[in-house]
């Protein structure tokens, strides 16, 4: 009986292996993205359109100019008003959920890029945030096997030294933002990212976002990452270790004293 079970198990394993096309790339063909990297510039998702110029995400009145539909522009403007009043909490402030994609390409602290023929991992220290990009030839899951997740589903391929990957299935406005101005997308977003080294010290991600609900045209955003000095390390980032800024009932960010008491003077 045990032999029969073992044989069946082997058949299942063989079938599962056969269903996945093998990547043509081998380790020696792949570019060297080793080391520790840090995003260039502040955590404004689309620095090319930010207003005012050099404005920081989260500061009152700062905004970007995605090609939003009128309805999504109106939602964005309403969020910007909440940001001004300090009543738009960043979803990650609760220390309970990841940043999600594509915000994962817009993080403070550092990154690591782990490249293998069958898969690349983009690891953001802050969060921590992990994006898994499958390059073994698989397709996205079918509709019955795909549900919205923070980072969505990413499959890709190598075009020379460029990793091209396609992301769908993100949570979008249901729990994620792109930056603290309140930019967000719908769950229908379809994002194609081209990631490559443009010189020995710089990785560049060209992110092309299409979203039939939120956008009237494709939105192209470029992010760059600079290699840090040799020997640099990434560290733990345990957001729940000592979070003295819980979110209040009205969406305001509170401050706790060393004993855990709320310092803020709360409105009754």
């Amino acid at each position, binding site marked *: 009986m045990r032999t029969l079970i073992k044989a069946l198990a082997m058949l299942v394993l063989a079938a599962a292996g056969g269903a996945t096309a093998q990547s043509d790339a081998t380790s020696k063909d792949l570019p060297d993205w080793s080391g520790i990297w840090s995003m260039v510039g*502040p*955590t404004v998702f689309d620095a090319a359109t930010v207003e005012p110029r050099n404005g920081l995400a989260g500061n*009152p009145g700062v905004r970007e100019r995605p090609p939003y539909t009128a309805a999504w522009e109106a939602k964005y403007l309403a969020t910007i008003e909440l940001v001004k009043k300090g009543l*738009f909490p960043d979803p990650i402030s609760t220390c309970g959920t990841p940043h999600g994609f594509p915000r994962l390409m817009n993080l403070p*602290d550092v990154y690591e890029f782990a490249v293998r023929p069958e898969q690349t991992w983009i690891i953001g220290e802050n969060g921590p945030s992990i994006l898994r990009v499958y390059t073994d030839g698989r397709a996205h899951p079918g509709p019955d096997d795909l549900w919205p997740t923070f980072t969505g589903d990413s499959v890709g391929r190598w075009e020379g030294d460029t990793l091209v990957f396609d992301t769908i299935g993100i949570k979008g406005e249901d729990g994620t933002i792109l930056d603290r101005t309140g930019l967000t997308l719908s769950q229908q977003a379809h994002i194609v990212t081209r990631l490559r080294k443009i010189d020995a010290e710089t990785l560049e991600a060209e992110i092309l976002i299409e979203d039939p609900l939120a956008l009237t045209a494709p939105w192209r955003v470029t992010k760059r990452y600079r290699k840090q000095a040799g020997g*640099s390390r990434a560290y733990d980032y345990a957001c729940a*270790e*000592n979070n003295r*800024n819980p979110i209040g009932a009205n969406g305001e960010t509170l*401050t706790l004293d060393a004993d855990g008491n709320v310092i803020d003077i709360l409105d009754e």
Partner: protein
Amino acid sequence: MNTTPARRSLIRAVLLALAVATGPAAAHHSATMFDRDHARVVEGTVKEFQWTNPHAWLQLDAAGEQGKPVEWSIEMGGINSLARSGYRPGTFKPGDKVTVFLAPHIDGVPAGLYIGARLPDGTVLGRMP
């Protein structure tokens, strides 16, 4: 590694130079409760330096109105970015008399967002007025 006192001193100097060159780090939350337009100085004695994520906190005993002691809660960046800027768990030691430049809490309570500090030996970290 053979770490001589001279070498330790050099490392410390490099780290402090890094810290001097770097301003306050990104917070993990909205910082609208801190009034950056009315940054002020607070002098006090370090009670505790919480070397933690998502933020480090400097607890500072300072004189309040009528000389009554007040404990300030001073929020800093996350320790990963602070470490890359040259800060270490021992940068602020309990009992140190320090001067801190901060953006005060808008409610007027003894809390603020760290901008910079002057250590007992005169070293300036971050940005001071």
